[in-house]
């Protein structure tokens, strides 16, 4: 039976209506849904009925699902396992730090010997910032006697034209502190609030978030964190 034939249209419309309403019996329902996958006239007829009827669903009072539902979704997708309504800023979440520890561990392996060798006082400080795939996206370097940090783009996703990358220090037990906006490509420079020994004394990590053009207006990260990197302790 070809449901798309013009003389079949009223029949198709009635079938689609009872499909969307839910009264179409099991076998007919499975069959129509199968046909809709390949026949656009059928799928459009169904969609038109969805448009007509589904606004009515919005009036039904909502029922809150158990918190377990979100936990299982987050678990299946490997997301930060914090219930949305309980979530704080990303930098204060346990899941973030756990993911960060893993990512930076993998990042160190990926970089091989560069970071395996203990950093010494006469060497520049190197912080590798990587995304969840552990591929280095930015490399920050600075000399121990300088407040100027050089940040070089070596990978990562392209930055949309209306967004900016912003670099943050992540002090232990305190809110992130901005080091400024980075250029979308190439090499950028930011100035530390003090010489590295002091500035990084309580800062185990750096992070880069995606912010509106020009950076966060609030002084705290607003956008998602894209890259993180561990500041190796070398004292």
């Amino acid at each position, binding site marked *: 039976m070809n449901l798309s034939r013009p003389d079949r249209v009223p029949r198709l419309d009635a079938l689609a209506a009872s499909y969307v309403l839910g009264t179409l*019996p*099991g076998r007919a329902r499975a069959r129509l849904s199968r046909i809709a996958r390949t026949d656009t006239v059928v799928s459009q007829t169904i969609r038109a009925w969805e*448009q007509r009827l*589904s606004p009515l669903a919005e009036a039904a009072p909502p029922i809150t*699902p158990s918190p377990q539902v979100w936990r299982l*979704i987050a678990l299946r997708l490997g997301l930060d396992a914090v219930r949305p309504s309980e*979530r704080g800023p990303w930098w204060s979440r346990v899941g973030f730090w756990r993911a960060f520890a893993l990512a930076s561990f993998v990042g160190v392996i990926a970089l091989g010997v560069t970071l395996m060798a203990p950093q010494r006082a006469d060497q520049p400080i190197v912080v590798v910032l990587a995304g969840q795939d552990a591929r280095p996206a930015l490399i920050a370097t600075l000399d121990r006697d300088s407040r100027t940090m050089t940040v070089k783009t070596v990978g990562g996703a392209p930055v949309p034209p209306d967004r900016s990358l912003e670099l943050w220090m992540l002090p232990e037990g305190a809110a992130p502190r901005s080091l400024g906006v980075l250029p979308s490509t190439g090499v950028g420079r930011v100035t530390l609030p003090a010489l590295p020994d002091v500035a990084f004394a309580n800062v185990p990590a750096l992070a880069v978030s995606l912010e509106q053009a020009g950076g966060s207006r609030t002084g705290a990260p607003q956008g998602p964190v894209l890259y993180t990197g561990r500041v190796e302790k070398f004292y």
Partner: protein
Amino acid sequence: MRVAALLSRIAMGDQVAFAEFYEVTSSHLYGVALRILKDPPAAEEILQEAYVNVWHHAGSYEVAKSQPMTWLTSIVRNRCLDQLRRREVETVTLTSDDDDAPEYDLPSESMTPAEMLLAGAEARSVRDCVDTLDAGPKQAIALAFYQGLSHSELAAHLHEPLGTVKSWVRRGLERLKNCLDRAGMGRE
């Protein structure tokens, strides 16, 4: 619209947007699923599947083709109805014992299905169309839509012959369609 904006961020892998999206939409979708299935574990399972799907396929949502809540509600309703109707086919063919499924009582509702239908209509300024339905068809359509009742369940629930409820539903839907299309609603 907020949900559409969240979907486009989810398509780029934004977990914060996804959590917010869940917060904004999950109670609505769970209500839809639970009323149809009347089985919390099954409704939760459907919800999980739906959100896993959204995470993976948010990019395939086409703004031009439907409102995001219509898209989502349809995904959830379809999955629930598929499961419900499939269960019935299996029950009919495999067993004659329909007392084995425990009845789940929905939390007591402040609105009857027919009232929900009217409230929904009001929200969409298609109240006039729902109002043109006679009481019987209106109640049959509301029970089928919100609670997933089949024709025979409708007949039992409304104490009417099967043929009567079938024609109520058919003619009620036709009338709704003509009225909504005339009013410029519910067209592509």
